[in-house]
C-alpha cells in the first residue's frame, strides 16, 4: 500500500515527530504507533520503514504489534470512521436493530469501506457509555440512545 511522494513525506514527518516526542525507545513503541496512526489515519508501509530504522526494531515485530491492537489500522480508512458498540449492554437495549440500519444505509458490512472512500464501518467493544446505549461513534462524536430511524439523520450531517 504505497502512498504518493507528497503523502510519503507527511508520513515520515509524522513518525519523526512522534519519535521525538516519546523518545526512540522500544517501550514507547505503542504510543508512537498510536500517534502516527492518529496523524496519518492509518499505518502505511512507509511508516513501518521509518519507525524500524529509528527504533532499530524489525518490521515484522512492528507489524505484529500494529495488527494486534484495534485502534491501530494497517489499511487505509474512509474519511469518516463509524465505530459501533456491539457489546451485550448495547445489544439488549436495541443495538441489533441500529447495527442493521447502519449497514442498510451505507450498504457495507463490518470492517469495510464504501467505494467512494467516505465511510469505514467498524465494531468496537464497550466504550464505557453503557448507560446511554445503543452507542455509536462517528469520528470523535458520540451518539447515545440511538434509534434505528435516526441513523440516516446522524450520518447525513457528515455529507
Amino acid at each position, binding site marked *: 500500500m504505497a502512498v504518493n511522494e507528497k503523502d510519503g513525506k507527511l508520513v515520515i514527518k509524522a513518525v519523526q515527530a512522534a519519535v521525538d516526542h516519546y523518545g526512540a525507545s522500544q517501550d514507547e513503541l*505503542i504510543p508512537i504507533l498510536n500517534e502516527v496512526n492518529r496523524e496519518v489515519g492509518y499505518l502505511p508501509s512507509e511508516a513501518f520503514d521509518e519507525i524500524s530504522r529509528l527504533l532499530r526494531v524489525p518490521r515484522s515485530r512492528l507489524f505484529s*504489534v500494529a495488527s494486534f*491492537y*484495534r*485502534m491501530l489500522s494497517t489499511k487505509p480508512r474512509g474519511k469518516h470512521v463509524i465505530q459501533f458498540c*456491539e*457489546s*451485550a449492554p448495547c445489544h439488549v437495549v436495541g443495538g441489533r436493530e441500529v447495527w442493521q440500519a447502519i449497514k442498510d444505509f451505507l450498504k457495507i458490512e463490518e470492517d469495510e469501506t464504501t467505494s467512494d472512500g467516505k465511510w469505514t464501518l467498524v465494531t468496537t467493544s464497550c466504550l464505557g457509555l*453503557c*448507560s446511554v446505549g445503543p452507542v455509536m461513534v462517528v469520528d470523535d462524536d458520540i451518539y447515545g440512545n440511538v434509534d434505528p430511524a435516526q441513523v440516516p439523520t446522524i450520518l447525513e450531517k457528515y455529507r
Partner: protein
Amino acid sequence: MKAYRSMVLVSSDPASIDKGANEVYQALQTEINAFGLENEISLTMVGDVGRHDAVPLVIVYPEAVIYGPVGKENVHHLVEEHLYKGRIATNLQAPVKELSGKIAWLSTRKGTLPAEQRIVLERAGIIDPESIDDYIIHDGYQALAKAVTEMSPEDIFTTLEKSGLRGRGGAGFPTGTKWRFVCKANSSKKYVICNADESEPGTFKDRLILEGDPHSIIEAMAIAAYAVGADEGYLYIRGEYTIAQERVKQAILQAEEMGFLGENIFGTEFKFKLHVHSGAGAYICGEETALIESIEGKRGEPRARPPYPTTNGLWGKPTLVNNVETLANVPPIIRHGADWYRGFGPAGSPGTKVYTIMGNVNQTGLIEVPMGITLREVIAIYAKGMKNNKPFKLAQTGGSSGSIIPAVLQDTPMDFDSFAKAGVALGSGALLICDEDTCVIDLARVLLNFFRKESCGKCNPCRIGNQRAYEILTNISEGTGTMKDLDDLMLLSDNLYQLSNCGLGQTAGAPIRDVLNHFRAEVEAHVRLKVCPTGICPMSGKRI
C-alpha cells in the same frame, strides 16, 4: 491558588453529554466572558454527580445550588441572575424533593432504605478534578503524609489486611497480602502499576474515578510504592479514555510541582516517578501479564503463570498490579483506619462496591453501595424498577466474564463469599439487567462473539474453542441446532475453563454453562421445537 468568587460545575457523565452538556459548557463560557466575570468564576466539567433525573446539571458553589436540566438557551438567564446579580434562578433549579447532591441523597434514604455510601467516589463530581488545591482541601494527600512519615510498610500491610480490602478488579484477592508479596520479593528495582484498562463491557466505574478524582489514584499509588519499595510506577489507561488520560497527566504534573511525587517526598528518602501509558484497544490487556507485555511495547499476550508479577513482572522485576477501584479505597483506609472500613458491608468482604447499572430498567447509571446488598434491592431502589414493569428475567454481572444470574438468585447478597457459594461471579461490578424479552441464546451468542474477537490467539483452547462455541450458538439461533450440540457446548465450556492459559479463556465458557444450567428449557425449545420463545432469533434454517 487563584481565588474565585464562585465555582460552576457542569455534569459530564454520558447521559449529560448526550443531552448537550458540552453545548451548555460552551454557552456558559461565552456568557461568563460576556458579563466580564471570567476572573471571578471558575468553570469546570465534572464527571457523574450522582443523579440522572435532571441532566445536564449545573452546580454553583459555594451556595451549592443545583440547576437542571439546563439547556443552552437557559444559560444567559442563569449567568445573569445567579452569577451577575447574585439571585438564585429558581425557575431553573432541579426538583428539590428528589435530592440535591450526595448529602440529600443520603439524608432522604436514611433509616428507610440502604443508602448509597460513597468511599471511592467521595469526591468525584464534588471537587474540581483539574485542581490539586481542591483535592488537598478535601483531605487529599493526608493519607500519603501519614503513611510515609508515621507508618512503616509493615503497619500499612497490617492495616490493609485488617481492613479486609479485596481486589475490585474481579478476582477478589486480599490487597494487603498482595502488597506484602511484592515487598518480600528481593530486588533493588520494583514497579507499581495501576490497571486502568477498563474494557469489561458495561463497566465504567474506573473512568469516573480517573476523570472525577485523578489525584486519589496518584496518592494511592505513591502509598503503594512506599510500602512495597518501588520508585517507579505506570498508569495503564485504555486508549479510548482520552479525557481520563489528560486529567491524570495534568494531575501528575501538579503533584510533582507540589512535591507529592519526585524526590524526597515529605522530606523523607522516599522517591517516586509516575508515567501514563495509553492502551491501543485490546480487551486482553486488562489481564495483568498482558498489560505488562503491552507496556514493554509488545503484543498484549498473557504470560504463563507462575512466576507471578509479584516476583517477575515488568522488565522481569517484582511488580504490584492493582485495579483503579482497589487503589481508590487505600487512602480512606489509611486516613480512617481498618475498623472504620470494616463498618461497611459484611465481615467476609467489607467496604463498598461501585456498580454500573444498565439494561431494561428505568434508571441506568452508577452507584456505590456497601457490599452485600441484593439484586432485588438494586433493581427496586436504585434502578427504579424494570422498564414498562416487565418481569425481571436475568442479570449479567461483571461484564462478559461474569455470570448470568437467573431471577431465582436475585436475593443472594452481592459479596465475594455469598456469590462464590451460589456458584456465580461478582466480577467488575457491571449489572446488565434483562427483562423477559431477552433471549438467552442470543445473549450467549453476543458474549461469545465478543470473546472470539478479543481472544489474543496465543493458546488453542481459547482461540478455537470460542470460535467453535460461537458457531454452534449461531446454528442454534438459526434453528439448525441438534441435541448433540448442547453436549458439545458443555464440553467446550469445560475445556475453556480447564485448559486456557489466562482468565479470558477460563471465564469465556461461563455464559454457556450458566445458560445451559439455568435456562435449559428455553435452549431445548430452540433445538427440539425450532422455536425461539422470545422471537429474537432468526430461526431461518441456515447452517454455518
